[in-house]
């Protein structure tokens, strides 16, 4: 079974050392490690501390505003968590592409081509990349072209690729991001790990957004920048809808646009929505920029409210469903929780941490390992894998039934 350790310390090397000491000797033939460390840490010093006991083991992962590794659930920026994998555990070759800056879709295609060439195309894939291409001015590596690049090669008719992953960030303010690429610390980098033919991934995607407006039609969009809604400047439409600029001092990461799939007038079902956080607004250009460039002109969207009660209810439902599935099938090798950083109570204002609620509902003793993320990637309702915003993705990795 995968061994997990977490710690918190203001010294970067020391936190790595503490975790390494805890994990030393727990996995007889450790093959690789999945590690996330808080954004206030020096990632190189963290790796040095970890390697004092774990040696030259490949380490993948990267920055995270916080970790979810019970009993430690924290996002102060000084945490770290590591999962250690042995020969019998999920995980295959570590495929790395350092060309994210030259084009995310091409990077996705290159990774997928290597997965295909290696005979790993049909396996579930863990995908990690650094979200922040540039800190100032803020520019992201969008997930949708990267995931689309992978799907271009890996999707088969009737069998879409199963991709679980995250766009990594250092903190809740989107300060920066980095990736552990198996050898060290990298930027503009995507890492893909096939989890093994013997393993399947069962996901529960938990949202918490609910429509707060009527439908609007995107009438002009360029990439991730929405210029017009219903034929009018998008910025004006949103501000007017809100009740003026004073009503919400900053739109960044406060509002979400949601596109409903299927019957637009069907009763509310959170799984029918693809939500995109508004990253910023430009008064001069009259535009709003969303996290991903995957909406298109003609698409109908609604402003979504991040409903904390709905979020917690969604976690209760999702965790209970996961617990039932776990009870019915093989014991999981890993329960990976990729949790949008915006769901942390310091950002959402929720009465409690939804990640803590998840940990309470899931059976004790599971190999539960999670982290706070910028973008989550998961299959939508057994459909294609896609980037998601403001979601918690619980991926249960277990051996396929014989």
């Amino acid at each position, binding site marked *: 079974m995968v061994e997990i350790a977490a710690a918190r310390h*203001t*010294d*970067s090397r020391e936190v790595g050392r503490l975790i390494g000491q805890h994990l030393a000797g727990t996995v007889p033939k450790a093959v690789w490690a999945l590690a996330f460390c808080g954004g*206030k*840490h*020096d*990632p*190189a*010093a963290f790796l040095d501390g970890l390697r004092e006991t774990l040696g030259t083991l490949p380490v993948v992962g990267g920055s995270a505003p916080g970790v979810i590794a019970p009993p430690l659930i924290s996002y*102060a*920026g*000084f945490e770290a968590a590591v999962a250690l994998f042995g020969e019998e555990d999920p995980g295959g070759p570590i495929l790395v592409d350092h060309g994210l800056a030259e084009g995310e879709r091409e990077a996705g295609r290159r990774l997928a081509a290597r997965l295909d060439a290696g005979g790993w195309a049909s396996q579930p894939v863990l995908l990690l990349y650094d979200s922040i291409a540039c800190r100032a001015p803020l520019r992201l590596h969008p997930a949708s072209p990267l995931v689309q690049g992978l799907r271009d090669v890996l999707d088969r008719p009737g069998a879409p690729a199963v991709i679980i992953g995250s766009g990594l960030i250092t*903190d*809740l*303010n*989107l*300060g920066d991001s980095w990736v552990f690429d198996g050898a060290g610390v990298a930027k503009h980098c995507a890492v893909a790990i096939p989890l093994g033919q013997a393993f399947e991934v069962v996901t529960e995607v938990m949202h918490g957004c609910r*429509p*707060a*407006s*009527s439908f609007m039609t995107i009438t002009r969009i360029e990439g991730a920048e929405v210029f017009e809604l219903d034929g009018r400047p998008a910025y004006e439409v949103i501000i007017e*809808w*809100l*009740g003026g600029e004073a*009503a*919400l001092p*900053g739109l*960044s*990461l*406060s*509002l979400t646009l949601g596109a409903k799939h299927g019957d637009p007038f069907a009763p509310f079902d959170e799984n029918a929505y693809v939500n995109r956080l508004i990253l910023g607004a430009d008064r001069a250009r009259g535009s709003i920029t969303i996290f991903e460039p995957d909406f298109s002109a003609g698409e109908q969207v609604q*402003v979504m*409210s*991040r*409903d*904390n009660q709905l979020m917690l209810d969604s976690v209760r439902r999702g965790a209970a469903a996961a617990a039932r599935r776990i009870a019915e099938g093989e014991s999981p090798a890993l329960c990976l929780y990729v949790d949008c950083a915006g769901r942390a*109570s*310091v*950002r*959402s*204002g*929720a009465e409690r941490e939804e990640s803590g609620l998840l940990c309470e509902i899931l059976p004790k003793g599971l190999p539960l390992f999670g982290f706070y993320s910028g973008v989550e990637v998961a299959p939508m309702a057994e459909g294609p894998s896609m980037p998601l915003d403001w979601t918690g993705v619980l991926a249960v990795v277990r051996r396929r039934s014989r």
Partner: protein
Amino acid sequence: MDMTETRQMRLKREIEYYRRECNDLGARLIRLQEEQSRAFREARRSRTVARLIREAYGLIDGTDSPEALRARLLEIVLESTQCDRAALLSRREGSNQFDILHVLGFGNDVSLAAVSLQDPPRFFLTNSSTLLNEQSHAITAILRIPFVLWAYDPGSGLAMAVGNASEANVSRPFEPEDQELIEGALSVCIDVLHRKQLEMELQRAMVEAKAGRDAHANFLAGFSHELRTPLNAILGFSELIREAPEGPFDDRYREYAGHVYDSGSHLLQLITEILEFASLENSGTVPLDEKPVDLDAVMTSVVQSLQSLAKEAGVSVSADRFARPVRLLADQRALRQMLTNLVGNAIKFTPPGGTVGVSAALDEEGSVAIRVADTGIGMSMEQIPVALRPFGRVASAYTSGHGGSGLGLPICLSLVEQHGGRLVLDSEPGTGTTVSLLFPAGRSLPAGDAVS
């Protein structure tokens, strides 16, 4: 207009009505949620000081060093305020320079230089409305980020700064109301650090007091024997002389008188050393009568005065003469005493047939080193600190019959340090011991008139 058209118009108006109400309700909901999030963050931020107070006593007990304590205090502040960086600073007395005691949030191990602040304010903040001036520039330069909260306490000289790289999302602009937060956090830190300092000083004092008690107990245990032995000899032999029958004063009584004299001399030396050491302990120093001293003459004189002791012990004692006269600015009495103690110890701890040599050297910078080297029983590394400790006596089969106050070396150490010098002791069991008195360059003088 027929009924269908009327109904359609009505439906259209109804849909439009619900659409408007839905949008209005939705917008209100969004605003309410943002207010709730903001209120939650503010509540969390306002609990910073309460949390610091709550954890303070636990921090004092749980952390080993002030450095670890400072790190933990800053960590609590950063976590509660969701800020990016924090620093604790201390003002140098009588200066505008602030030393940075601890920083958090830089990621890599950064070493920050001292900061100069003219008229440091007790409270300061920067936000996007702040005008840039020398003071705002100096304060933001501490954490190297634009948005900073600052508090300074003139009484303790400590200051705290917390800051953010942006004013967005969880990091709202700093406001004047944040003064309570930063000053409260600084106050708790000052109190906790002060308590930790007191705790450490108390522990040190307890260790010293225990060492003193142990030394006192050792002294009482060992020294009473040292005092009683010569006193018993004086009383015993003088009684024999007193009760001698009338008659000529033969050799036996001369021998008894000799024992009385030796015991009395030994007793006098013990008492002199104790009084000397007590004087050094009480006043910290003895007044030095510093004059140019002929080093050669003092060394020769001391060696000559101890020749009878050396002869009795079967040990050869000699002093090297300088090629040219060397004068030392020193208290002659203290110098004689140091050399007498060192040469006397060397003779005491050297078996018959051994040698004790006294030498002095002047190096190129003008520092003077006086060395007393013996071929005696020597000491192990563990025994050296014992020998240098007041009343500490190195026990061995050879020394068991050689009583002493255990103050000779401590007195030498104290006197040479009063001259700005050092005492260095090198020793190897079975080979011998070399004690060096090292005087700083300023004390060596050109050849000329000297006290000898």
